[in-house]
């Protein structure tokens, strides 16, 4: 689900060659752990956070593991080749970290039944393929609470990429969070039809600011909106990683993906011989999502309130999608007290009541 470019083909080919050339150190006891990344580690977003997961594995097991990573692997045939090479070199567990790596992972896994595969964000599993992902919407709800309290114009801007459940769920969660503390809040949503175009993301943020939004959410990959919020003296919420460098004053808080605990647990399971194919969808409670850098300019009571919501979500006491909740057209989809099932969340293709505008199909 990341953008691609020709260069990635070239870089991936080189990287793959480097992997082949690396000496296949045959030290019987060392567990070999491989990671396949879709972007560069330096993207300060998606891939950067996954690499933090690799570093956590290294830190946790030290000499007992040997890690390999391949950056800039394009989704498609190259992903299959890179994954197969890692398998052929005798890696014991391989993490493939982009949605588009799903089919290549399944294909390679069939050929190497003894190797464990971990695919991030997909829905296809096999005996030796587990899947894992983060409940990003929990972070969006918490940040929605902060945004709802902090907005003075009662207008929150939201830069969205494509109308898939992942993104729609994020909008709904942020809206419900904001609405829970500020009944007057309105969301202005702009769909930019791209994951990555810094120029267009900046233009969209500008349009939102011009129309009176004073807090901006984004579900795109570059920090353009954060940078613009900083220039305009308004607020924004960081996405995927901490964007404080781009908005030291603007960033209210950032929802930061934390893959480390999961990766460490899974590597440990391989060591102990307890690894099983599972489907993990973890959130704040599992430590897979952190709300980072909550800005000190936010009043203490708001920070406290957000922390309470965060703690309740973590403990399972509260679910961001708890009924009674209606769809945009007023039809109820959750009865009073009912919590949304994972199936409902995974296929969410409607706005909740109160969000204005029509959802692109």
């Amino acid at each position: 689900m990341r953008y691609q470019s020709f260069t990635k083909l070239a870089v991936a080919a080189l990287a793959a060659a480097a992997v082949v050339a690396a000496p296949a150190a045959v030290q019987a006891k060392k567990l070999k752990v491989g990671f396949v990344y879709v972007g560069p580690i330096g993207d300060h977003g998606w891939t950067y956070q996954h690499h933090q997961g690799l570093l956590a594995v290294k830190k946790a097991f030290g000499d007992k593991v040997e890690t390999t990573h391949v950056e800039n692997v394009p989704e498609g045939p190259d992903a299959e080749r890179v994954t197969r090479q890692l398998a052929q070199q005798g890696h014991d567990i391989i993490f493939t970290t982009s949605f588009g790596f799903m089919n290549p992972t399944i294909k390679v896994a069939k050929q190497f039944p003894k190797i464990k595969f971990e695919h991030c964000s997909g829905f296809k599993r096999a005996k030796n393929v587990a899947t894992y992902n983060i409940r990003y919407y929990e972070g969006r709800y918490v940040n929605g609470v902060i945004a709802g309290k902090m907005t003075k114009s009662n207008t929150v801007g939201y830069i969205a990429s494509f109308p898939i459940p992942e993104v729609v769920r994020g909008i709904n969660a942020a809206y419900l969070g904001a609405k829970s503390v500020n009944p007057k809040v309105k969301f202005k949503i702009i769909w930019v039809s791209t994951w990555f175009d810094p120029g267009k993301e900046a233009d969209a943020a500008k349009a939102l600011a011009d129309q009176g939004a004073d807090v901006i959410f984004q579900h795109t990959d570059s920090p353009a909106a954060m940078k613009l919020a900083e220039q305009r003296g308004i607020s924004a919420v960081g996405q995927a990683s901490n964007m404080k460098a781009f908005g030291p004053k603007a960033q209210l808080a950032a929802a930061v993906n934390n893959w480390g605990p999961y990766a460490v647990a899974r590597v440990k399971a391989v060591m102990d011989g307890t690894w099983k194919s599972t489907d993990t969808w973890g959130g704040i409670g599992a430590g897979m999502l952190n709300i980072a850098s909550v800005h000190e300019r936010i009043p203490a009571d708001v920070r406290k309130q957000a922390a309470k919501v965060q703690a309740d979500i973590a403990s399972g006491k509260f679910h961001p999608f708890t009924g009674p909740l209606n769809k945009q057209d007023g039809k109820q989809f959750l009865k009073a007290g009912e919590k949304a099932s994972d199936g409902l969340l995974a296929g969410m293709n409607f706005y909740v009541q109160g969000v204005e505008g029509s959802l692109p199909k």
Partner: protein
Amino acid sequence: MELIVNILLGIVIAATPLVFAAIGELAVEKSGVLNLGVEGMMIVGAIAGFSVTIETGNYLAGVGAAVVAGALMALLFGFLTQSLLANQVATGLALTMFGLGLAALLGQDYSGKAAGNFPKLDIPVLSDLPLVGALLFGQDYLVYLSILLVIGVSWFFRKTRGGLIIRAIGENHDAAHAIGYPVVFYRYLVLLFGGACAGLGGAYLSVVQTPFWAEGMTAGRGWIALALVVFAAWRPGRALLGAYLFGGITILQLHSQGFGVEVEAQYLSMLPYLATIAVLVIISSDRLKVKLNAPACLTQPFRAAT
């Protein structure tokens, strides 16, 4: 009222990188050379401009570096197509891929850094006028440069001997050669100018518009600039118009979403392209005129007859 001014300001910023890249490519095509590497030259300009701005803290140095970097890329293209007579289309495509890869390599240490705000024109009283002040007298310097470039290129091709020679080379390089003009030399010069302009366009994106560096951040603007040249029927004024039309519709569709216009976002995203195509169809309905405007020697390799 203030919102309208803000929308217009947004349009200027969205259009300016396209103006730079399109006016440079227009001049290049006037000399009978098609350089499809605009995207590659832009992105190299973007990282060169950004990295030098960060390292020196000097915007002028950054812009200068972008100009030089874009021109160097064009020099490479010139060497391959003019001196070695490589196919222009293939070389141009290769230049784009090379540029994207090179920029990603050079930019490794610069992702995650942010630049400050580019200096703006500030004339006492005039810049502070309500509404028109910010629009006419309060833009960043590069916006004025882009407009001056368009006027300059237009004037150059219409009124100067050098412009006439380059047009002659573009129309019939054999004839121009026969009466003693150094065809390849002139083409090199124009290519360098085109590269410098593309580099500026890229730098505008990374130093002024966003302002930060991210891999692949030109996101197809080089290709739009190429389309604008055809759209403009090789006329500088129309290229400017085209860039502003494209930027204008891009910004307006973003705003209309914010206002809750009930049109599917995908259609709105298509609008700038649709409008460009529509105008292109209207302009090219007069086939003879298009033929007259397109440089006759476009993409043809030149080998001096002995």
